[in-house]
């Protein structure tokens, strides 16, 4: 049986906290970009202009067919070089974080767009008709009538997706970034205390995600009493 020794953790807390900040930053920007880009994709998908609708469908289906790990590998190994050549960025510039963030946001936007599309469709067609009957343009009806209602209904789903996203950020491990999980792994590896650090990381993720999901559940009860 293993002899537990948790003594490497206290000293490593500042380093782990730096990692957590990276995880949170990636999560936050991916949520924001994901929702904005996802909304645009959803509206394109529902638009009557065939080319837009096909583009959005292709984009969403492509990203949803490919593992996140694969997307991150693309953005770790291939995209930086490509972009570097394209814009003449000097070789050796560290683009790992920005590249990983871009990969994340583009990937998550595909998932957000599906949530948002369903949300828009669930706001009844009648609302769109009523807005048009009042003389609003398509854009006005969307912005003033449909989207506000759709987003109110979707808040719990969007937050749940954010929790999943936060968990997914651990996968930036494949781009050798020191996010919270990467940091924990490094400390454990350095001190020969991988068992303790991995369990610690698991516990931290659990506490954060479990609490967050309970809060979402409360919100859901408050806004959509069954």
């Amino acid at each position, binding site marked *: *049986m*293993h002899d537990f020794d948790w003594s490497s953790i206290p000293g490593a807390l500042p380093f782990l906290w730096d990692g957590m900040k990276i995880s949170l930053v990636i999560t936050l920007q991916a949520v924001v970009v994901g929702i904005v880009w996802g909304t645009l994709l959803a509206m394109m998908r529902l638009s009557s202009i065939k080319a837009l609708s096909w583009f959005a469908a292709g984009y969403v289906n*492509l990203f*949803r*067919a*490919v*593992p*996140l*790990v*694969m997307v991150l*590998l*693309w953005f770790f*190994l*291939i995209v930086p*070089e490509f972009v570097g*050549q394209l814009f003449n960025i000097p070789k050796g510039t560290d683009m790992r974080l920005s590249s990983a963030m871009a990969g994340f946001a583009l990937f998550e936007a595909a998932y957000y767009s599906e949530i948002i599309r369903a949300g828009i469709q669930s706001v009844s067609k009648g609302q769109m008709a009523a807005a048009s009957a009042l003389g609003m343009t398509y854009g006005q009806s969307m912005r003033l009538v449909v989207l506000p209602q759709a987003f109110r209904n979707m808040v719990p789903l969007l937050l749940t997706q954010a929790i999943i996203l936060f*968990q*997914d950020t*651990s*996968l930036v*491990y*494949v781009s050798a970034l020191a996010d919270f*999980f990467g940091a924990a*792994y490094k400390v454990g590896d350095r001190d020969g205390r*991988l*068992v303790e650090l*991995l*369990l610690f*990381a*698991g516990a931290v*993720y*659990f506490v954060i*995600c*479990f609490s967050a*999901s309970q809060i979402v559940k409360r919100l859901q009860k408050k806004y959509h009493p069954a």
Partner: protein
Amino acid sequence: MGYQWNWGVFFQPSATGDDTYLGWMFAGFKMTIGLSLSAWVIALLLGALVGVLRTVPNKLLAGIATAYVELFRNIPLLVQLFIWYFVLPELLPESLGNAFKQSHPVLQQFFASMVCLGLFTSARVAEQVRSGINSLPKGQKNAGLALGFTLPQTYRFVMLPMAFRLVVPPLTSEFLNIFKNSAVCSTIGLLELAAQGRQLVDYTAQPYESFIAVTLAYIAINVVVMTLMHKFERRIAVPGYIGGK
């Protein structure tokens, strides 16, 4: 751009000489399929059981099932995988832990990956099964009981067959997820599709071809699974209900 495309690279003998690079990819493909399917069996069996338990009147059983789901849903897959692979062997009784560590490395990686993916997915399957059962009209359970079925019989003959049909579409998406999530197992060195892709980049210096090929392989898996599941959905559709004729 000065990139030299060379799709012929797949037919060149690999660096280790005993295979072509296409052979490497195919080996990774087989590993991804084998791993995902075996993990799916675990996920379905455990997920169905846990999902049903979440709906039973017994508070203790339902509570245990809920705790199970929350545990596996709130820890990232990668962390779970590392815990299965690096931590669990240390926590097992010495003889068992050593037996694991002395087994073939590929076997260790495969076993940890299969258990990890299986349990992770089972929690998600359980959620779908639970919501399928809960979305049945409440009267169905009463109707079964009123005919004299016991509670287990009511589940077996009345609720589960219908819940199962409701749950197939969301389970299709979990089934697709398990193939995608299996790519996470490349992080512990299991040579599945994504890992082979990475290896190809290192060995062939043809990163574009390698990654495009691997990405296409994942898309192909996706398309095949979706097609099969749609056929399946049509076969089990109930006449007179949505999805039926």
